[in-house]
């Protein structure tokens, strides 16, 4: 049974592009074409607007919360080519850092697993990806992967903090690699790895036939394998898996939808994938024991009654 528990009136004056819950799911940050970011308290079914952040000069595309050990931090990216990191001190939000080294709209921003420290990555329509890190004393350094995706990079996602092989061999204490996955207008999904301070392309995943709209690296649930989901304007969602031993990725098409799939996200335990897109549906997908991906729930937006129907597939 799926039910709508609450609805939150965001009072954004234009389209919402992203909504992100903080680490604990108690605060919801939203961003919109109206250039603002709003933060809501969503504890115990209550929603209250706590703050409104203004500072971008264009539509704000995406948001990311940092791990709470760094305090309350939000990173936002916008059409105005900027990435802004906002920090809350005593209930008021202010700009902590502004990154302006992109030549076009910044489409995606994401924080690295907290074990790597305060690090974030962003992808831009200028085709490059920036990895920005804080040394902790207030100074920030940035590394740039130029020409990561020709025409533009639409999405970036960090790999979880697990060293390859660490699960098979718990005594293997080597530091996990920093890895990110990105998707772009060259129809490609690319995996990048940091080696001696430099970012290198580790793998190019070909499978989509149109712009890749979103990529999401699944949280680790104790398996040695890595899983990445990508969605595209070719209406398809692809699940890429690597068994953790080599550099080979196999792929499986999760589903071909009826419209562009805009957005993907994994549940906390990495076993359910939420896909949403232009067909006005949010569907949840789960992998069965046999490795099949099946839809377990979906939420429709449109005119209609609350229905509860059984579909045998």
């Amino acid at each position, binding site marked *: *049974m799926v039910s709508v528990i609450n609805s939150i009136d965001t009072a954004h004056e*234009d389209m919402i592009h992203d909504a992100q819950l903080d680490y604990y799911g108690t605060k919801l940050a939203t961003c919109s074409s109206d250039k603002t970011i709003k933060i809501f308290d969503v504890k115990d079914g209550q929603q209250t607007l706590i703050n409104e952040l203004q500072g971008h000069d264009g539509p704000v595309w995406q948001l990311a919360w940092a791990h709470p050990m760094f305090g309350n931090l939000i990173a936002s990216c916008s059409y105005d080519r900027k990435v802004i990191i906002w920090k809350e001190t005593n209930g008021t939000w202010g700009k902590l850092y502004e990154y302006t080294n992109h030549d076009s709209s910044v489409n995606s921003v994401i924080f690295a697993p907290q074990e790597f420290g305060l690090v974030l990555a962003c992808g831009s329509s200028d085709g490059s990806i920036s990895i920005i890190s804080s040394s902790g004393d207030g100074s920030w350094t940035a590394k740039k992967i130029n020409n990561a995706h020709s025409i533009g990079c639409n*999405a970036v996602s960090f790999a979880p903090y697990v060293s390859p092989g660490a699960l098979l061999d718990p005594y293997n204490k080597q530091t996990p690699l920093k890895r990110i996955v990105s998707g772009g*207008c060259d129809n490609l999904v690319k995996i990048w790895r940091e080696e001696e301070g430099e970012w290198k392309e580790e793998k190019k995943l070909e499978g989509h036939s149109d712009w890749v709209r979103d990529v999401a690296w699944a949280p680790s649930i104790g398996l040695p394998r890595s899983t990445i989901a990508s969605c595209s304007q070719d209406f398809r969602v692809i699940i890429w898996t690597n068994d953790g031993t080599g550099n080979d990725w196999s792929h499986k098409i999760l589903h071909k939808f009826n419209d562009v799939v805009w957005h993907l996200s994994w549940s906390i335990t990495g076993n359910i994938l939420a896909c949403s897109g232009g067909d006005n549906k949010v569907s949840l997908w789960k992998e069965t024991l046999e490795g099949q991906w099946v839809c377990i729930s979906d939420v429709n937006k449109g005119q209609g009654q609350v229905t509860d129907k059984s579909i045998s597939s």
Partner: protein
Amino acid sequence: MAEREKVFCQTIYDPACSAGLQSTWGFGNQLFVFPGRKPTLYPENQLHCRRLQEIREVRWDIDLYHPVMRKLVNESHNIFVMLQKHAAEKAVGGSIHPLILKSSRQYIAVLIAYSDELKKLADATIDEDKKENYLDLLRLLKMSELIWSLCEILFLDSPAGGLVITQLLDWIRIHFTDEETILQILQEERPDCHQFYWDTVYRLVLQGQIDHARRLLSKHTAAYSDNFQSIDDLLKRMPIFSQMSRGHSVAEFDMKWRHWQDDAQRRLEEQEFAGNKQLRTICRILAGEEAVFTELQDICGTWYHMLVSKMLYQHPTVKAIDLQYYVQSCLDVYRNSQQRLGELDNILLVALEFDIHQVIKESSSMFSNWWFVAHLTDLLQHCGQLEAHKLQYGSNLREFLLLDYASSLMSNKSLWVVGVSYLDHCLEFGRHYLENFIENMPIETERKAQKLLNICKERNMTEQARSICKVVGMRHLNNKRLGAALTWFLRSKDVAFATVIAEKFLLEYSESGSFTNLDLIDNLGPSMLLSNRLTFLGKYREFHKLYEDGDFFAAGSLLLSLLDSRLAPKEFWLTLLKDAIPLLEARELIFSSSDTYQLMHCLEELTKEFDVMKQKDGKRRAFSEHEKEKLGLLKLGLTRNLSRAIVTEELFNVYRSDRPPNKNNQSHGGVLIAINKELISTEVSELKTDCEIVWSQINMTGSKNLLIGAYYRPSSNKGTSLQQLELSLSRINQSSNTNIMIGGDFNLGHIDWSIPQVIPGKPDAEHHNKLLELLENFNLQQIVNTPTRKERILDLILVNNPTTVNKVNTLPPLGLSDHDIVYIETDTWLRKVRQHPRKILKYDKANWENIEADLQKTLEELTVMNNNNNSTINEITEGGDLLSLLH
């Protein structure tokens, strides 16, 4: 598996957006859904929709969050845990079958208990929506119970010989109870006139409730007629398997049954009940006639009731495994009626077909929560049913379902603890799931953090525990609750943050002069060793406590060890040294001479460092006026303490000439020389004359000897004292190669030593001139050129070899004296004395009683001397060795 899943669909009416839909995950089964889309390359102005933008919170699998269901979850959890525990114990040997059966019964009992509760609640409430909600849940529980009971009969409770009819009858009776109707009928004046009289009798017979049926029949007005008696006789004699089971074989029962049924058929054929249609129907049932069941289909109500009834009268010895062959005929009866086969029927059907896999599959799509399948599968797993059926999932099906069940509990703010326990019993993935959940568990309160920590601790999840502590600690730190923050950082053994907090505490202290969170700092215990700074904080606080308690010695030695071990941060040295001031001024001697040297050394180091810093970076802070004043005080305190220590510690040979006792027979002063025992010294008594004077000689191999004298001239003396001094000096062998040095209070202040000449117009010129004459005669020079008492130079030092003197200084007076101390450094020795090892007194091992007694004694002596005479101490230091003159 694919078809096992059922797709639930929820539609939201909101024309706000045609552009698309987005979603973001909450915690557990929670999703936020909102209209909108990812960025396009250029903002599309035509898409602007200026209407309210709403975000919707969507949840699923939440019926377990209902208050009644929460209780059910908790109670079944206990059963679950108990079963896992016993199963683990029994796994070594022995049968766990009785246990499984017991657990199964407990689950059913729980289902029944909460069905009753829901029913009561539904009856009690007038709110329609609530009532509907209660009834929904009630239906759910009823259905669970029905399926569960059948599964228990078929899969768990395998009766002797596989005969199941008794259990099946029980199953039917519980779910199709007529008790209320029976009572109603019995209360009627004429029970047989009740509209349901016969229906009830039929049903009782169909359910094998023979005693009840006979009771009802006996209330009939015609109960004593022949045909009633005949039926009663038949019913009474009906063989019941369970009663026979002991000591009788199935074959015996079968024989008995056939015999009895033959009797029934015979009576039917003989038209015994021709006059009474109802009794005839009963007899037809007893005879197991096929057609009668179809006639009574409305009374059976469901195909499975009919199945059981038919079995009772047609195949009482049917085996569980064979039931499926009789199902179809019952289904056919109901096929044409309006009832369609529902999900429930399907589940029961597949259960009867012994397709356990299918039962689980169908059940998980029928129930909107995982409670039923997770627990049932667990039971089946334990009794080996799943392996026996060679499911393609293997042993993982149980875990797969338990994980889903646990996950659905994790997003509830009270059930998550139960979820944790279930995850514990998922050997393969449970731990990883738990790690992921714990990391993201909202920490609203300290108590919850504590709870989470305990969970991590029990499971050895250090990473997660650290993360929790860090987060809570940071929260406190941001809210300026240092104490609470420190507690959390200590818990996570976070060195960096513990250091930061310790520093903040220290800063707070140096700003305000007091500590907050004393309790915490006082009880740090071994955890203070986490970081140096923290250790220092703890120790420093210990110092304060010792000081407050008046244990100055322990306080002093702790203070010293903090400085000496370099545990104290440099920025804090000044504070520590300032703290030493009251100890230096204490009545008792706290710091030994070597301690004092150490303190002096630290002070020196600190001062130098400040100078260096100032030169390097003009912006760095220099000592403030207040600090300078404190440093002055400190220097004074150190000097005074040193002299006290020197005297007390008997590190010196002391040569003295005491003034004769006064008329009250009190000793009151005199002169003395103290010479470090490292140097070989002797008193030179032949130089003693009739004045207050004492001489000693230090013998140096390969160098001139040093002759040191201490002298005092009372101001009232009319000349004899200087003559005696002259006599004494004259006895020195002038030809011997000796450095002479004599100091003391001459009480002759009217000499301008720069010339040197007596200042004209001043009293007592005679004695002043005599002194100058003496100097000339014995080739001595006076080297003190700064006033020692007020503006006059009363304390003089006479030497025969002034070039050896490097430095002459005055230091502030000691004790009650109004004379400054005269301090000189000389280079008398050509050969440097080997530096001896520094001595650090282990005060904690000392015989304190003796030391105290000794100190007390010495102190008394000193006090007496000081009180009776205005004494000064003149010190002469020499490459670390020290001489002291006192008169």
